[in-house]
């Protein structure tokens, strides 16, 4: 029986699996692609006496070498040379889907287009001229509705017809001058290498060389024509600019938008609320300012609106401490219960409301579909500054907790980009640091408290970008440019109260869990160190903390921090903050020997900080050594002590420099 190998390809969520099931009757052999953990699905069907062997390729937006999925799909088409490649195109999202199709045509694959979700496109009001699309692209186009098995017989017919086709149209995609001239010149150089010309389509290979495609460059670097090629590439850079990959991608999109879509889509383009909102949210000029304004609103919501709820918790814990300790005759045990446990833990827990409100706001932004837009808007800036576009999502997660954020970097394919993102991620201000900002800011910064807290987040972002740029420039391992970001933007939706509350609670619960474990231990330890030797510290009913073990520890370290204006108490708080950043707050409360309710005012009256040194302390807390849990995650994800130690050392040094900079310039400007 005659056999035809058919590869199914398409963007994610276009109905590829449904078409695979329709064609094969759902009978599939599932395995892995050789040497990869990506699933490979194969199936068979017989149509008009011909066996169709169908291979389901991974869903992909393009055929670059940036991800494993893209590479698998591309290598299968180049190396296995399937008889027919069925590109499943989402008819309701034609413009985006045509990008992959253009790349398949460049690859000179024998393409049949399944124009799926035809019904969805119709319901949106699209009128697609199938004949014109087929004529423009030089391939058969079959409208299908996979969910209703519509168009499946026609698709099989088209596959058989295409498999018999001997001649294929070449050079469908015209980039215009100077692109086409340079592509031809490079192709003619590559043509001289018989091995390359027998294996690859020359025009496609030339385009990939221009794009500096990693895999292709590895192959052509072994070619005898490589030296000649390098000279030509240098010339091309002068004409097309350094970033030819972006330039060619932009040309493809403009071919789609200007040449294909206007001829194929008749009538007005459907307009949705998402289109309208994106006009402003993704605006070149307003996108970033809108993001910053919304971020500011989020912080005022978290800081100011939650304040009375924090007061309620403070009152509750104070009363609990008084109630429990009143029934204990032993002064040491009473102090331990009231000040050590209820005092310290109560201080930390009173910061749960702002953290929960922050997560509530974040959940609203996420569930509404805005957060991916924020990532998209910031991507342009981040790529320019040397950070990878995909880094923004882990960075956003870092505002919650750096541990899952570090783990989320697994979505970044290139190891250099991934490690770079891991290294700068702890600079994103996690929720654990918020209680510290709130305590210090409310103690010494008065009406500027909210603005100072907000500025910590901006400072974190700025430092992360700055360090990424610096590492990219000075560390040879990171040299090179980040790969471009491709992401799907979901439709906007009105978040439901239930799911938003669940999302906020799930994240806030992590803080509570930490407060009940590691923070409690730190608080107990700091209570012990600040209350002992008991007789020396408690003299005639007075609390003389200067005589405590903790004061001795602080004085030992204090000289190193004196240029920053930090006294021994601040140093001790930072020391315990290494275990968990939230512990800074509990440590201060224990050292000051006050209830959580009085922590802020006690800190102010104790004169530990001036507004300037308080602000510098906040910046130091933001920047210095990641907490133990984050360090563990860094080690697990990098699998390297070298990078883990590097993270500790550079952040400590950076924190010192930033705090010193704030204090020095602040004093020069006349602040105290």
């Amino acid at each position, binding site marked *: 029986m005659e056999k035809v190998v058919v590869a199914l390809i398409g963007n994610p969520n276009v109905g590829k699996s449904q078409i695979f099931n329709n064609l094969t009757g759902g009978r599939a052999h599932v395995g892995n692609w050789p040497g990869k953990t990506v699933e490979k699905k194969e199936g068979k069907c017989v149509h008009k006496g011909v066996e169709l062997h169908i291979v389901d390729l991974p869903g992909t937006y393009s055929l670059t070498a940036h991800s494993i999925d893209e590479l698998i799909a591309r290598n299968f088409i180049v190396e296995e040379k399937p008889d027919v490649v069925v590109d499943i195109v989402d008819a309701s999202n034609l413009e985006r889907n045509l990008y992959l199709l253009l790349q398949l045509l460049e690859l000179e694959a024998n393409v049949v287009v399944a124009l799926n979700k035809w019904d969805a496109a119709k319901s949106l009001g699209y009128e697609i001229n199938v004949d014109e699309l087929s004529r423009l692209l030089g391939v058969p186009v079959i409208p299908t509705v996979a969910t209703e098995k519509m168009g499946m017989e026609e698709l099989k017919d088209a596959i058989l017809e295409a498999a018999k086709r001997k001649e294929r149209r070449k050079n469908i995609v015209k980039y215009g001058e100077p692109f086409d001239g340079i592509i031809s010149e490079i192709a003619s150089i590559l043509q001289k290498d018989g091995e390359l010309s027998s294996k690859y389509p020359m025009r496609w290979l030339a385009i990939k060389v221009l794009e500096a495609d990693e895999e292709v460059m590895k192959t052509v670097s072994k070619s005898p024509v490589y030296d000649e090629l390098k000279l030509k590439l240098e010339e091309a850079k002068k004409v097309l600019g350094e970033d030819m990959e972006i330039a060619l991608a932009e040309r493809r999109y403009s071919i789609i938008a200007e040449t294909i879509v206007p001829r194929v889509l008749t009538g007005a383009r459907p307009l949705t609320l998402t289109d309208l909102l994106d006009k402003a949210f993704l605006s070149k000029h307003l996108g970033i300012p809108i993001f910053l304004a*919304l971020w500011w609103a989020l912080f005022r919501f978290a800081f*100011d609106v939650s304040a009375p709820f924090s007061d309620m918790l403070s009152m509750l814990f104070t009363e609990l401490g008084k109630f429990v300790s009143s029934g204990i005759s032993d002064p040491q045990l009473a102090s331990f219960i009231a000040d050590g446990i209820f005092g310290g833990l109560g201080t930390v827990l009173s910061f749960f409301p702002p953290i929960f409100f922050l997560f509530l706001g974040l959940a609203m932004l996420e569930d509404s579909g805005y957060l991916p837009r924020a990532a998209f808007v910031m991507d342009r800036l981040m790529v320019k500054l040397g950070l990878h576009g995909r880094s923004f999502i882990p960075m956003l997660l870092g505002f919650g907790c750096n541990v899952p954020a570090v783990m989320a970097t697994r979505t970044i394919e290139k190891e250099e980009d991934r490690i770079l993102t891991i290294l700068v991620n702890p600079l994103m201000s996690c929720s654990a640091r918020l209680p510290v900002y709130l305590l210090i800011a409310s103690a010494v910064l008065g009406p500027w408290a909210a603005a100072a807290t907000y500025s910590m987040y901006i400072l974190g972002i700025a430092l992360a970008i700055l360090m990424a740029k610096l590492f990219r420039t000075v560390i040879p391992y990171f040299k090179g440019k980040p790969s471009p970001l491709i992401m799907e933007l979901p439709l906007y939706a009105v978040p439901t109260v239930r799911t938003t509350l669940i999302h906020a609670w799930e994240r806030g619960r992590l803080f509570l869990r930490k407060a009940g474990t590691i923070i409690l231990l730190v608080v107990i330890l700091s209570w012990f160190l600040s209350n002992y030797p008991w007789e020396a510290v408690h003299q005639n009913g007075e609390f003389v903390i200067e005589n405590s073990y903790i004061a001795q520890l602080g004085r030992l370290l204090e000289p190193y921090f004196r240029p920053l204006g930090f006294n021994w108490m601040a140093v001790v708080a930072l020391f315990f903050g290494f275990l968990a950043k939230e512990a800074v707050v509990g440590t201060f409360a224990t050292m000051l020997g006050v209830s959580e309710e009085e922590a802020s005012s006690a800190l102010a009256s104790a004169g530990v900080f001036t507004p300037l040194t308080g602000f510098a302390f906040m910046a130091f807390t933001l920047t210095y050594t990641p907490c133990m849990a984050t360090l563990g995650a860094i080690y697990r994800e990098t699998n390297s002590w070298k990078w883990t130690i590097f993270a500790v050392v550079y952040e400590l040094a950076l924190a010192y420099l930033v705090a010193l900079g704030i204090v020095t310039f602040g004093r020069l400007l006349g602040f105290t």
Partner: protein
Amino acid sequence: MRWLSMRQGNGRLVAAYAVALGVAYLALGAVELALGLHNLLWCSENASLAGIVPTDILGGFASLVTGATFLSAISVLRGVRESWGYVIVGLFLSAVFGVLYMLIVGADGLSTWLSYVAGEGDWTWEWLTSGSAGPGLLRPEIWLFLASLPLAHLTLRALKQFNVLRGRRAQA
């Protein structure tokens, strides 16, 4: 084309309304920002304008962004359909900050009540006009949000008329 009729009738009214709000927000933002910077750099005291416009650098920035978004809606007059997005997002920002400041005033009230219950202070109504939101309910962003509600009504009506809210295209 109905979009054309929007451009001539309702569209013109909406664009004019959005521009007026945009100018108001820009003026407010500029003053808040200027007062905030003045307060930060030269004065130690709060230099609020007539007790109504607060000294708020970042709040001023947010008002400037809201104003610029509303002003961008002027291209609705040229028939650029997507520019209605600027009106919607401007209204959204106006609502976010209007509601936010009202919530802050409410939180101030709750804090005052808690202090009163704990015996730490007397009960007064001062939180209505002075507190974390600056001049409390007199904060201009709250009044501008209320002033934007008729525009929200006009915009919602237009969007429903043209099936945009259901993702349907405009019918000729």
